[in-house]
């Protein structure tokens, strides 16, 4: 620990330690080398969340590197939380990147196993998996707290100090084991946990009851993963096609109901182009508004759950929605009344 009693002293750590119900955001880097994309997305997150996760080639699709995007975000005044997977880097490469990331000013790190490369655009590639998320956490904690490389050699000079995060999926199987696996992550060094997207509140509540019974909420900060649903097809897709995700039928019904009373797709087909465009826009707007309302409801439910320290808002390719979500739930540095100057 440093002098100020913080492990690292990042915004995220400070807000969590202060006991605020925190909000973190997420930004998916582009599949090209255009830094302007980052600037565009960043404006919707700046000042609204504590820190912004930057994915590491999510779903195994090649994207701009997490650490380079982190540097761009810091220039824009946003605190990054870099994600690092064990899929593409062995322990040598991970430690090397972390030395550099710390030197560049990065302070938050999410340790992940990573999506398998068969889901991405280079299924021919070799997968590394030298470590898994848990042994990576252990390594990163030892780098910070024991000033030791994974091999046991001492770090001479500045050690890389990161506020360490890990993921948890309450909806994967075996359900009974999931709280214990979260416990292993806490034991391996996770200072905070960000969960998979929650669209099944009762199941998440049951998961949290077990986590609290094990006392894990006192060992690590748990942020509930949330995100606005963009459309009815998106809800159905998540419900049926994404492994490890569960969507409460109630939300599918609400998304379906959101466009009731508006012209249907068949009616729109028969319209003049201009009128059709307006009708389509109205449907989209109504669905998106309901998607945000559902997200707000889920966050409010999470606020009432013991052991939940905040939310991680994943509005990938819809960063604009984050401001409204935080405003309507009164969370985060901008909208939490407890955090406004008197």
């Amino acid at each position, binding site marked *: 620990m440093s002098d100020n009693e913080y492990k690292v002293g990042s915004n995220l750590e400070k807000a969590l330690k202060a006991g605020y119900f925190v909000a973190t955001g997420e930004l998916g880097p582009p599949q090209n080398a255009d830094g302007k994309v980052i600037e565009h997305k960043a404006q919707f997150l700046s000042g609204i969340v504590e820190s912004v996760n930057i994915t590491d080639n999510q779903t195994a699709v090649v994207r701009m590197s997490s650490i380079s995007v982190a540097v761009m975000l810091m220039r824009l005044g946003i605190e990054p939380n870099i994600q690092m997977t*064990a*899929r593409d880097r062995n*322990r040598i490469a991970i430690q090397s990147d972390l030395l550099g990331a710390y030197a560049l000013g990065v302070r938050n790190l999410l340790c992940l*196993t*990573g*999506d*398998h490369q*068969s*889901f991405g655009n280079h299924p021919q590639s070799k*997968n590394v*998996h*030298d*470590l*898994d*998320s*848990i*042994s990576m956490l*252990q*390594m990163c904690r030892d780098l910070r707290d024991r000033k030791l490389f*994974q091999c046991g050699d001492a770090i001479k000079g500045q050690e890389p100090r990161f506020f360490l995060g890990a*993921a*948890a*999926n309450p909806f*994967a*199987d*075996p359900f009974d*084991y999931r709280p*214990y*696996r979260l*416990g*292993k992550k806490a*034991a*391996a060094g996770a200072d905070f946990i960000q969960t*998979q997207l929650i669209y099944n509140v009762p199941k998440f509540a049951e998961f949290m009851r077990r986590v609290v019974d094990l006392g894990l909420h006192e060992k690590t900060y748990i942020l509930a993963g949330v995100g606005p649903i963009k459309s009815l097809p998106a809800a159905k897709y998540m419900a049926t096609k994404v*492994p*490890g995700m569960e969507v409460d039928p109630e939300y599918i019904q609400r998304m379906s109901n959101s466009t009731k009373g508006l012209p249907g797709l068949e009616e729109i087909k028969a319209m003049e182009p201009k009128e059709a465009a307006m009708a389509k826009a109205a449907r989209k707007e109504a669905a998106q508004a309901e998607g945000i309302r559902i997200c707000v409801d889920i966050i409010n439910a999470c606020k009432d759950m013991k052991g939940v320290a905040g939310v991680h808002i994943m509005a990938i390719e819809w960063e604009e929605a984050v401001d409204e979500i935080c405003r309507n739930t009164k969370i985060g540095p901008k909208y939490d009344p407890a955090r406004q100057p008197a």
Partner: protein
Amino acid sequence: MIVAQQKPLEEIKAMIAGAEKVLILGCGTCVTVCFAGGEKEVSILASQLRMATRMAGQEKEIREFTVQRQCELEFNALAADYVADSDLILSLACGIGVQTMNEQFPDKMTVPGLNTSGLSQPTEQGVWEERCQACGDCVLAETGGLCPVARCAKSLMNGPCGGSQRGICEVYADKQTPCVWDQIYHRLEALGQLDKLMEVRPAKQWQTSRDGGQRKIVREDLRL
């Protein structure tokens, strides 16, 4: 056992294109048991190649022979006369057999007719599932007798990732491949050993696997 599959015929035809006399050399051990490179498969492939080369107007002299174990010099020595009288050897052994032949008969090229694809268990007629990756540091005592190195798509050592649902691994297109960590969990639960899954397993030391370079066992007690 070591399991293998025959390469596509077109690839085999391309490999033997420059030769007049080809010896197809089978192996009587693992690849016979997995129906890829035994006497019967040698015979079928020989017929296919004779027919194919005849139809192409470039008929080749195709010979057949199968040794008991192509990974051992003594057995391959029995094929020496055939080898001497051939331009090229098409081996239907695993990669070990192919290399043994190349080492033993350096004047003749031996090419692979099979793709070697794992240390597998025949789980039902016509199905072989990989069970061991020969990592050199067996963890089966800790994992309920099921191997996460070979059977988890990410070789995880600390339990199932978030892609395990209803006992199925998300990675495989067939959506039927079991998540081995789900199987490990239920086996250890049945054995009353779930405590093994609560411990953090540190980073695996891969130097005993192929990552440390080619492995070699030397048993001084057995050397002459």
